[in-house]
């Protein structure tokens, strides 16, 4: 079986699935809450969970760093954040660990888990990741840094500067591009001159690897190699994981203005969550009971998280002026 060839135990595969499912369920709930008028804004991970978990699972969750982007719910959950954390953030409550209710949801940042605080302007985090890696060079630590963005964002200037800088200094950074075929309404062919991102790697002296982002094992495999290379001083890697954005760009978007429902339905058949579920079924890695139990367990966890977050305290208006300076 594929996962065994990769050195993954059955328990580990079930853990991977658990986090993919948790991410999906949290995300779906956010949309319901948005449509019910309870949350002003949602931006999704749906369709990219396999990529995110395959990537994050190959990192050392005790010392490696993440500089993620707004869709990386799966990653931050695996690194330690909880459904409750997400809901505190979505409801913009005082105890939101990302920003104390200051940032939009999915603007992750959590010192506990070495997740660097991120912003909205895309791809700035690519340079921060390089800086964290460079810091390790100075202090003699061997952490690896994962940073990610969408394929549309990979055309920003900072992206180029980051890959080149990391390449020159052979820094332990892994640059992940989650290619979901759209940048809001703009399709791939109007974004990427070369048609793909991975080929850009060699221009920076690093491997550029394209992988099916719906295949959690495939992603894990290339990432594991990349992490080993990074940790042993062989430098950075560029990974392009291709999947599909199953939701509109955000709760403010209407995706049927630029793509068809059929195209979306077609993509759902290749959804990485669904693919892994089938793998677990086919290889009888769980019983139907276990599967149902997991689903219920996560539903309860999320329901409780929502209840908790809804009634949690708002920041105090006087907090507005805190943390501008030290």
């Amino acid at each position, binding site marked *: 079986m594929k996962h065994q060839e990769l050195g993954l135990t059955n328990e580990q595969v079930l853990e991977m699935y658990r986090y993919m499912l948790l991410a999906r369920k949290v995300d779906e709930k956010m949309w319901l809450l948005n449509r019910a008028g309870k949350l*002003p*804004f949602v931006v999704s991970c749906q369709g990219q969970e396999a990529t995110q978990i395959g990537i994050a699972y190959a990192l050392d969750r005790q010392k490696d760093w993440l500089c993620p982007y707004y869709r990386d719910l799966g990653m931050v959950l695996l690194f330690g954040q909880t459904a409750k954390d997400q809901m505190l953030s979505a409801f*913009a*409550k005082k105890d939101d660990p990302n*920003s104390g*209710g*200051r*940032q*939009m949801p999915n*603007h992750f940042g959590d010192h506990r888990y070495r997740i660097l605080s991120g*912003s*909205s*302007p*895309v791809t700035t985090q690519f340079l921060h990741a390089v800086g964290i890696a460079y810091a390790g060079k100075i202090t003699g630590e061997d952490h690896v840094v994962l940073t990610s963005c969408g394929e*549309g*964002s990979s*055309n*920003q*200037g*900072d992206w180029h500067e980051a890959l080149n800088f990391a390449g020159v200094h052979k820094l332990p950074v892994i640059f992940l591009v989650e290619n979901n075929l759209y*940048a*809001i*309404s*703009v399709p791939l062919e*109007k*974004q*990427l001159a070369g048609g793909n991102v991975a080929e850009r790697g060699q221009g920076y002296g690093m491997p550029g690897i394209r992988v099916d982002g719906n295949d959690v094992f495939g992603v894990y495999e290339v990432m594991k190699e990349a992490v080993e290379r990074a940790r042993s001083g062989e430098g950075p890697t560029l990974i392009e994981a291709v999947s599909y954005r199953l939701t509109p760009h955000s709760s*403010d*978007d209407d995706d049927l*203005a*630029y793509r068809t429902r059929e195209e979306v339905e077609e993509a759902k058949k290749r959804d990485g969550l669904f693919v892994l579920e089938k793998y677990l079924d086919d290889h009888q890695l769980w019983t139907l009971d276990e599967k149902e139990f997991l689903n219920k367990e996560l539903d309860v966890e999320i329901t409780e998280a929502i209840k908790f977050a809804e009634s949690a305290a*708002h*920041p105090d*208006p*006087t*907090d*507005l*002026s805190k943390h*501008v300076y030290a």
Partner: protein
Amino acid sequence: MPVISYIDAITEAMRDEMERDKSVFILGEDVGVRGGVFRATNGLIDLYGEDRVLDTPLTESAIVGVGIGAAAYGLRPIAEIQFADFIMPAVNQIISEAAKMRYRSNGTFQCPMVIRAPYGGGIHGALYHSQSVEALFTGVPGLKIVAPSTPYDVKGLLLSSIRDNDPVLFFEHKKLYRLIKDEVPSESYTVPIGKADVKREGSDVTVITYGLMVHYTLEAAKKLEEEGIDVHVLDLRTLIPLDKEAVLEATKRTGKVLIVHEDNKTSGFGAEVAAVIAEEAFFDLDAPIGRLCSPDVPSMPYNSKLEKAFMLNPEKIATAIRELAEL
């Protein structure tokens, strides 16, 4: 006359001018098929085709830089920056290039281009979809900066901006997009760049402001009228070039000036307005020049209570006017 919204006035101005002048084209993120994330370019791709309503890659420096090249060549690009907050990657192209093209070439090249950017908050946009960034550019000679408050002014000023031979930053308050409707002529007309507008005549306190705050100030003025305080409201409409004459005249009117803007206070554009008055109309003043602005924090938070604490509103403005009137 048709009554249309602030954002419809934008669309209308672009449509009229693209019809009239084949050298006008639009470039930006999602401006094509999607018609812009705010729908400002709605329908234009159907009328003028994808070459003239161009979906660019997600690269603000390129949107502006490509625009500059096309403008220097002789076209009239309108660049849309999706949110004003995302103008930052384009600052080098705007300040080093667009603003200086005419000067550095001794007048042999120019850069007739408009950069449209939705700014401002109060829409749950959080730190990076709410900022007022206009002050960043007001100190850069070579740029013109426009920030209208009404649909009528929007259409007339956008037409002026597109026809202008210098680079114009056109800041649209995104909360006004659908909040405000107005009578707007369906034919083309221009409102001159560099002319402020008295939006209300008054004799007790002068408020100098622009953008969303014009409307909040007018609301405050209405309330204060009942209290017997008569407020004079000057809408700058254009920040650069500043209509000094109108500012000095409005100061003279009441001798008491309150400058109001949504941008944070320190080095906001209100500083320049205050400095001009303190230098050129000092002897007309009966009281300190007040500035009522957002607090000096890095933009407004997502949490609605914090956003409310950050934003000015008619009550806060009325309070500040009342205090000044009582001095």
